[in-house]
């Protein structure tokens, strides 16, 4: 009985550390000291190391949980019937995870390789749904015939540019995606639609 109670307590502490780290990393970036996370989570500094022996372990676990959660949301993209609806949903999912995703793209080079590959997995899920619909719409003659990776990277590049430079595009504490999603989407669609060719 006692050991079960201890087990539950241990699980709760782990959960608390992960939730707090997620919030702190989203706010301040990945270089925050573990002692700050411990203090915010209300646990001893030592107990972080019981669960995550190194900072890398904590980062890998956090990014991978984030990848799973975002992956579930991205599955909604599979249900979309046009590239415009798919991209609108992509922006909705990114907006939902905006703060952490911003840290992920701006500090990717600080992360251990295992966490970097989680980022690629997230992008590959988007690319999978994107390419399915894009290639279908190209066949139908709705979209210009351009290489899939160039269309995908143009979209990601555009969205990431606005996110990475949010301080120029939006006010502090304003969601840059919320503000620009309509504009980004309609202009990207104009770029790739065949009808808009002069």
């Amino acid at each position, binding site marked *: 009985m006692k050991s079960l109670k201890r087990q539950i307590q241990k699980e709760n502490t782990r959960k608390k550390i992960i939730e707090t780290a997620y919030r702190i990393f989203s706010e301040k970036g990945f270089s925050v000291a573990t002692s700050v996370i411990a203090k915010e989570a209300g646990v001893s500094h030592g107990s972080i190391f019981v669960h995550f022996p190194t900072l890398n372990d904590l980062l890998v676990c956090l990014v991978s949980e984030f990848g799973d959660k975002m992956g579930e949301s991205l599955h909604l993209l599979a249900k979309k019937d046009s590239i415009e609806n798919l991209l609108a949903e992509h922006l909705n999912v990114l907006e939902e995870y905006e703060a952490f995703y911003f840290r992920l793209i701006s500090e990717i080079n600080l992360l251990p390789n295992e966490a970097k*590959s989680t980022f690629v997995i997230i992008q*590959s899920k988007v*690319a999978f749904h994107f390419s399915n619909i894009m290639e279908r719409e190209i066949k139908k003659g709705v979209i210009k015939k351009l*290489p899939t*990776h160039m269309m995908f990277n143009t979209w990601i590049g555009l969205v990431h540019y606005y996110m990475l430079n949010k301080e120029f595009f939006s006010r502090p504490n304003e969601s840059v995606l919320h503000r620009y999603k309509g504009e980004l989407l309609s202009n990207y669609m104009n770029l790739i639609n065949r009808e808009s060719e002069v």
Partner: protein
Amino acid sequence: MKICIACGMPMESISDYAANDPSRDYCIHCARHDGEMQSFQEKKENLVKFIVRTQGFDEKVAEKMAESMMRKLPAWKAFFE
């Protein structure tokens, strides 16, 4: 709802399953034409091609990424031990 053991895709409708057979543990994208699951090598090659075609990565990098994706999936874990 099952998750494909070979690529991690959630399988919601019957058409997501290999050979339209919901008793299988892998999806239509991880099956060969005859409905059997692709081998480790086949799946890896297909993943590399997919990453290069849709994201334009360098082939060697794409190969590393394909491996790190596969490492996490039940069907391929044993190949990395």
